[in-house]
């Protein structure tokens, strides 16, 4: 396997990790367009641990993920009060604030970012992380909080009446989602080898959102399928050369029009 395709597959793995991490809050009805912000926090913290402090990558990833989760819990609390379009805009604002923070933060090189990161993200490592996340999510589904999450998704008021602690479930979903995004950011940084604030802007958040929604939120395989489509399609479209984003955009429009509930949309549709 050439190094080109290996690199593409590593990006596929990273995108899967990011999509799975956003899947959790989305499945609790928390649409977020600020995942690039959590990813940035994870990426910067992990790089500081590995490059400046000389820690091994797993230790750096753990710290990066935890810091991102902490930020996620912080954002998750105000997010309790609002939902739908409001939450989307709040998370968008959060993502922008994180980007602007790193754009002005001198120790991390402001706009010029951090370079010279060691290439530590290997294909087996990414595959392992993605597989672990998928396995955790599947175990999680049947667990107490996983069932609570699905109850919240179906009907918040009914769930609360049944004794589900709404605050705990929602903040947990958001923090776990941020944790995953932090991990994805750390992995991304050690494959891209250079990070700057521009890589984690609105477009990154939109891309992660796109992957999840495109795949469909009905099953855990949705984000995986979405990641495969969003990562591989632009590569496969290389034959159209400079017009590939146009073709990609057209395909996105077609997907949204033909399969509005996602490529893997469930057969049973919830009553509107």
């Amino acid at each position: 396997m050439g190094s080109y395709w290996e690199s593409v597959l590593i990006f596929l793995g990273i995108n899967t990790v990011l999509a799975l991490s956003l899947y959790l809050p989305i499945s609790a009805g928390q649409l977020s367009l600020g995942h690039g912000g959590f990813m940035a926090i994870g990426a910067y913290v992990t790089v500081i641990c590995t490059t400046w402090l000389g820690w091994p990558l797993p230790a750096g990833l753990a710290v990066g993920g935890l810091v991102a989760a902490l930020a996620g819990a912080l954002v998750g609390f105000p997010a309790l009060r609002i939902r739908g379009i409001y939450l989307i805009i709040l998370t968008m604002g959060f993502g922008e604030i994180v980007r602007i923070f790193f754009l002005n933060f001198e120790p991390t090189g402001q706009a010029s970012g951090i370079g010279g990161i060691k290439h530590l993200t290997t294909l087996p490592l990414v595959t392992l992380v993605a597989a672990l996340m998928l396995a955790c999510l599947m175990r999680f589904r049947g667990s107490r909080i996983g069932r609570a999450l699905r109850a919240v998704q179906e009907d918040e008021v009914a769930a609360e009446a049944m004794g589900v602690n709404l605050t705990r479930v929602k903040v947990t979903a958001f923090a776990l989602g941020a944790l995953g995004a932090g991990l994805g950011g750390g992995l991304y940084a050690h494959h891209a080898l250079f990070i700057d604030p521009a890589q984690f802007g609105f477009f990154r958040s939109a891309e992660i959102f796109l992957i999840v929604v495109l795949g469909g939120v009905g099953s855990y395989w949705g984000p995986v399928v979405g990641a495969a489509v969003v990562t591989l399609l632009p590569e496969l479209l290389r034959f159209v050369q400079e017009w590939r984003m146009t073709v990609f955009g057209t395909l996105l429009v077609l997907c949204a029009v033909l399969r509005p509930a996602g490529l893997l949309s469930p057969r049973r549709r919830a009553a509107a």
Partner: protein
Amino acid sequence: MLLQQLVNGLMLGSTYSLIAIGYALIFGVLGLVHLAHGEVFMMGALIGLQLVLWLHAGPAVALVGALLGTAVLGIIIELTAFRPIRARHGPIFAPMVSTIGVGLILQEVATKAFGGEQVGFPHRLEPVTWRLGPITISSVQLLILGVSLALMVALHLWVTRTRMGMAMRASAESTLTARLLGISTDRVILVTFAVASALAGAAGVLVGLSFNAISPFMGIDMGVKGLAIMLLGGLGNIYGAMVGGLLLGAIEVLSVAYLASSYRDAFVFAVMILILIFRPQGLFGVGQVR
């Protein structure tokens, strides 16, 4: 000094208002977010620029051309990225996917057609400046403020005085009831898209005239800010969006003058998040949050 800053803020804010009004119009009628609205704004700036470069047109022709061009663009976007999803009763996030797609297409088309670098309007119209006591106003500033205000007044008249405007307000109140009353809601939505997009296109020309920085990627920041302003004024509230834009322009300029300038956008979003948490119906919104 303060007065001068306020004038500058008002000028910047009036272009924000035009973008935010577009979001508010579309959200009002459809309850959906149009994530390529920033790209429509960018196309407006580029159409205006091309008219000036190729046809040696003046700013007035550039403005009208951009208005018409983006109105057509808005109609195309509604027909391709919104209406088919509506017909299939797709979930609210499906149009977000399709409009992200439209945004990507517009960015690449603009890059291919006009090049990826930042360009400005040729300085044929030399700005004249006047001193009014402590403040200085240039002709470009006056043009921006005047055109924005004129467009907002026109919009107000359209919304309150014409049959189409009233049909639009009825559809925003309840699409179903409006349809029962014999209003062709599909046509209303089409017109709403045209008007919203035309306002964004006009804002594109105005911003291009004042900052001389037109690029295929100028719409991203503006799109996010416009959404934030719509929220500030209350979802779907066009008057809230007008005032919100002016307010945000003033906040931004003042925070540059008196606080750390490089954090100005962070400051804007922090204000927005505080409003979301403490007053989710917006500064001027009334009643319940949906």
